[in-house]
């Protein structure tokens, strides 16, 4: 048996973006390996999403639909995925590098006793028809290429890096319903509550645009001008470690080596000097804009566009200009 499998992660009942990115990559791999692309869909009352997965390139959708799979738990999800893998023996198994993927993939890999390449930013097929994954290490201060010795070859894929595919609205999948044999005693983790952050914030690791503030912001209230710019751009708000350690922003917002590694299309760094730890977290952004008073700040070495000046003057003007540009 064979197959290139993509785990179809859902959030709030919708397929997350990286699933399309992985299925699109799967099409390329499929052509080289001569194996079909499939999606693995787990949840409760989710069968209608199988068609969407077909539109993204999944020929087969392995569907496990059960009330016990309504909320993600590593015990239940890993058992179902491992049972499916043992039955069908796929050669490749990909997950998004999300909170769920980062939890589920190593659980599944450990149960199967196989390797797992974490947080990959690229994949190619070598002469031996093995998948070679590119992954940043030391927070992107270096890059390694790895392959898995055994099947399934497993990886988590960083969101927003691989190009998404065009959707085929007319596609319909072959749905393979997987039996779910779960008893209450299989599930040791009980989800008591899910607490959403205020304001429906955009997740930094998935954001297309990020506006971030650092020590130069001078205080928590001053982040208001960052938020105003972010609102206009539909951007996520980030912060440097200095701003987080000062207590101005929550650690959820921290970008850098001990925070989040981000890769948006546009990163606007305001009052951030650009320490080596911060650069490690954001320098893979496609376009970087830096606003800083200090012309010697290291951030200017990685910025595509730099403005040497007072951010409290510059940022509100940028907000106003973007607003009128986007209104046109």
């Amino acid at each position: 048996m064979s197959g290139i499998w993509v785990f179809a992660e859902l959030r709030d009942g919708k397929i997350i973006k990286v699933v399309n990115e992985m299925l699109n990559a799967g099409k390329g791999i499929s052509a080289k390996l001569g194996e079909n692309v499939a999606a693995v869909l787990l949840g409760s009352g989710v069968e209608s999403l199988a068609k969407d997965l077909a539109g993204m390139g999944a020929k087969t959708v392995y569907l496990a639909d059960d009330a016990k799979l309504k909320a993600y738990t590593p015990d239940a999800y890993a058992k179902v995925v491992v049972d499916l893998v043992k039955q069908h023996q796929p050669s490749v198994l990909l997950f998004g590098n999300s909170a769920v993927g980062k939890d589920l993939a190593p659980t599944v890999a450990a149960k199967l006793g196989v390797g797992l390449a974490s947080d990959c930013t690229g994949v190619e097929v070598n002469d031996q028809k093995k998948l070679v994954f590119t992954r940043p290490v030391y927070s992107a201060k270096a890059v390694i290429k790895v392959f898995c010795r055994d099947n399934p070859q497993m990886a988590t894929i960083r969101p927003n890096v691989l190009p998404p595919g065009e959707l085929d609205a007319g596609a319909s999948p072959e749905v393979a319903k997987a039996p779910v044999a779960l008893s209450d005693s299989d599930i040791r983790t009980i989800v008591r509550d899910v607490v959403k952050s205020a304001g429906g914030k955009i997740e930094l690791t998935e954001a297309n645009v990020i506006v971030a503030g650092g020590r130069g912001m001078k205080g928590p209230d001053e982040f208001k001008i960052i938020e105003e710019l972010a609102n206009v751009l539909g951007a996520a708000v980030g912060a440097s470690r200095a701003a987080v350690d000062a207590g101005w922003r929550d650690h959820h917002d921290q970008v850098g080596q001990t925070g989040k590694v981000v890769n948006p299309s546009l990163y606007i760094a305001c009052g951030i000097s650009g320490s080596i730890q911060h650069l490690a977290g954001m320098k893979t952004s496609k376009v970087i804009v830096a606003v800083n008073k200090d012309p010697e700040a290291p951030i200017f070495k990685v910025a595509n566009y730099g403005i040497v000046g007072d951010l409290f003057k510059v940022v509100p003007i940028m907000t106003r200009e973007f607003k009128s540009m986007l209104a046109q």
Partner: protein
Amino acid sequence: MKIVVLVKQVPDTETKVQVKPGETAISTDGVTYVINPYDEFAIEEALRIKEAKGGEVTLISLGWDKAAEALRTGLAMGADKAVHLNDPAFLGGDAHATAVALAKAVKKMECDLLLCGKQGIDYDNHQVGVRVAELLGVPHVAVVTKLELQDGKAVAHREIEGGSEVVEVPLPAVITCQKGLNEPRYASLKGIMQAKKKPLAAQKPADIDASAGEVGKAGAKLEVVSMSMPPDRPAGRIVPGEPEDAAKEVVKLLRNEAKVI
């Protein structure tokens, strides 16, 4: 309560990484090593639980000779004893092989709770804690920012996209720690002096019933093909002028030249 903490020694975050041509690991020349920052949260949490409820904190690290320094630092913070998996056979492994060795070592101890960082800041794998839990047959909660222990169970707040999840697991369990959980203490001078007398046992594969083939490089399931430096970003440009003019110009460039707006 017996608490075990997995500790990894990693290059300091200030480190400028250098890769020599043909090598598959970074150059260790001139690199300063520290306790993995996320493991510091794990040590601190273990110490706080011990202070509140009593018990014993044992540290385990897998690594070269120098990794003993990280264990001494943890002992100086207040941990009671340490185990160092120190043998060439343990080195060069991936997350699988490392987890196999750590789980075998933990099996030799009493353990009601196992804490570690959510990931090492060197290889950024975020796998070892979860894998150790699987190998031990206990549940895990990953990326935890708040932890409460009640009768035989742990209630943990775990970071997810756009918020957090409150989950409950029976003990023993593995908890992987995230920034926000606590503020790690510094080792006091007294602690540093006391740490010198605390037990730090070096163990070989035979001590944990591991065969040389299942740990380290021989036991790895991932093969590293190459390591390289990422390409440099092309030099950018400073947009000159007064704030008003420069800001307007950059906004235009982002649309017309960079085409990201």
